[in-house]
């Protein structure tokens, strides 16, 4: 049952289009988190940003969807390649047409971003808890956490916060019963099956096992968020001395 018959337009088995607002459309590529869906979202995102339509404002990738924000007052008057009587029709038509060209694109070659993390002392207040929760050594927690690549599925929650997928299930740990009033910027935490990095100081209940000296979010940068959905990252273990050095110079090999 689709009420009013117009909010949803499935047009291909692998791809459906939905109304979000008068200025936004969501394209859904699947129902569950997997590599194939992740690739589709990011390939299409890349293609759309390489070939934007007139009036496109911004695209927001999420776990299985890409949301396209646009200015309907521009779209409705655009002359090039947008056909239809409504903005929704014009944009969805464009997206369908663009999607047919997606197969021609070669598979995304992602580069892995290495993020330095110090898993020591005050920077890792919950490391021992996580280790004892799983009955393993803190060194093993660090090894498990820093030995696998993670995918950035989505930036959400607060500016620059990356939802990472790929954590070893041996590290799954419930949130703290009482959240901290302020978690320092750069803190690397675990909450259930998720791991993530706090971009700036905010309250939070994640188990903090380390801290990155990099600025995950800096409003003075032209692109304030360090990570983007679609990136692949690895955590690189550093010691306190390196932590201070990187923090003070704000430079790191992976950023150049």
């Amino acid at each position, binding site marked *: *049952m*689709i*009420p*009013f018959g*117009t*909010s*949803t337009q499935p047009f291909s088995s692998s791809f459906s289009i*939905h*109304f*979000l*607002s*008068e*200025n*936004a459309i*969501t394209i859904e590529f699947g129902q*569950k*988190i997997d590599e194939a869906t992740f690739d589709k979202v990011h390939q299409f995102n890349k293609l759309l940003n390489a070939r934007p339509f007139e009036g496109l*404002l*911004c*695209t*927001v*990738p*999420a*776990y*299985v*969807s890409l*949301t396209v*924000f646009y*200015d*309907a*007052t521009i779209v*409705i008057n655009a002359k090039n390649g947008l056909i239809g009587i*409504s*903005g*929704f029709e014009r944009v969805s038509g464009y997206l369908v047409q663009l999607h047919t060209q997606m197969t021609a694109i070669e598979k995304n070659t992602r580069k892995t971003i290495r993020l330095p993390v110090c898993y020591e002392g005050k920077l890792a207040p919950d490391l021992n808890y996580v280790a004892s929760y799983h009955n393993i050594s803190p060194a093993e927690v660090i090894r498990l956490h820093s030995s696998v690549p993670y995918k950035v599925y*989505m*930036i*959400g*929650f*607060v*500016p*620059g*916060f990356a*939802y990472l997928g790929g954590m070893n299930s041996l590290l799954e740990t419930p949130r703290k019963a009482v959240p901290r009033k302020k978690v320092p910027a750069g803190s690397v935490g675990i909450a259930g099956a998720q791991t993530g990095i706090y971009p*700036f100081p905010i309250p939070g209940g994640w188990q903090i096992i380390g801290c990155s000296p990099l600025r995950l*979010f800096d*409003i003075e940068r032209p*692109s*304030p*968020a360090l990570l*983007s*959905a679609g990136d692949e990252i690895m955590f690189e273990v550093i010691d306190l001395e390196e932590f201070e050095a990187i923090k003070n110079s704000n430079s790191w090999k992976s950023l150049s």
Partner: protein
Amino acid sequence: MEITVIKPGILSTVQDLGRHFYRHQAIPAAGAMDPLSMRIANLSLGNSPTEAVIEITYADVSIFAETDLLIAYSGESCLLYAGKQALPANRPLFIPAGQYLDFSHLESGSRTYLAILGGWDVRPVLGSKSTYLEAQFGGLSGRCLKKGDKLRSSENLTQSNKRILASLKGLYINFPSWSVHKERFTALAKKTIRVVPGKEFTWFRADSLLSFLSSSYTLSRDCNRMGYRFNGQGLSRSVQTELLSTAVAPGTIQVTNDGSLMLLMADSQTTGGYPRIAQVAQIDIPLCAQLKPGDVIHFSAISRIEAEKLYLNQEKELKRLAVAINILCSTTSIPGKGSQ
């Protein structure tokens, strides 16, 4: 032009129409909660509709004119006074230097916008002058106005700006006989919010959908620039699937796990994981922005086609209004109706 803030009110921030190019970095749009009143205040001065304004929450704001001012205000939460003299909304007002101005409370709504000739001059951050309080950037260093703040207007004036100023400038408070008829742009039923069914509309039980579209909902005290929670008939789901977080937008109505409604507003997070029962029609966002805790509303469903048509029509009318004001200003003199 310059003002000093004498009384800042409970939450006054600098806002424009928002940040629209950084949602993928989870940076919310922010911007005026009631973009209609905000634009009418700007257009009344011959400003571009995107110029920065001051968003006043409720009232109790006082300012002092350090220089001559040309301002306009529009909204539902206050009336502007110079001493005992009430000054009309939705039209340009010339205020001579040395005047104190007070925004005093009106019962009808919760937000009012103060625009100044040329717009308030604050540094744009990521292409917008809007204040985003949570991450503390934009506007006045990412914070609300406080006592003693000095705000200046931009000196880049349009031809219309200059003409309006020339026609009203003098030694005394002065304003023209015309004003923008804001009622023309707003729905008559201010407590009926039109919505388009959302992507997860069909995840709810039929009787819950019936409640959603027929029973009344009361705005709770839990409401701010990020979002509103409503009290009313709880809604239950027939589909229990866990939703994978996806993009949301101001106007999205989510149903939280306790079955209550949460309407996302200007500063809302950019992604969400609660099922979206509906999306408020863009043209009714200003009505939502003016709701106060305790206000009782109804939701009524329209199609996305109708919502888009209403939205585009209103945008067209606002463009026509801007043109009409420009034409009005280009006639040699605008009759003043001052108060000597």
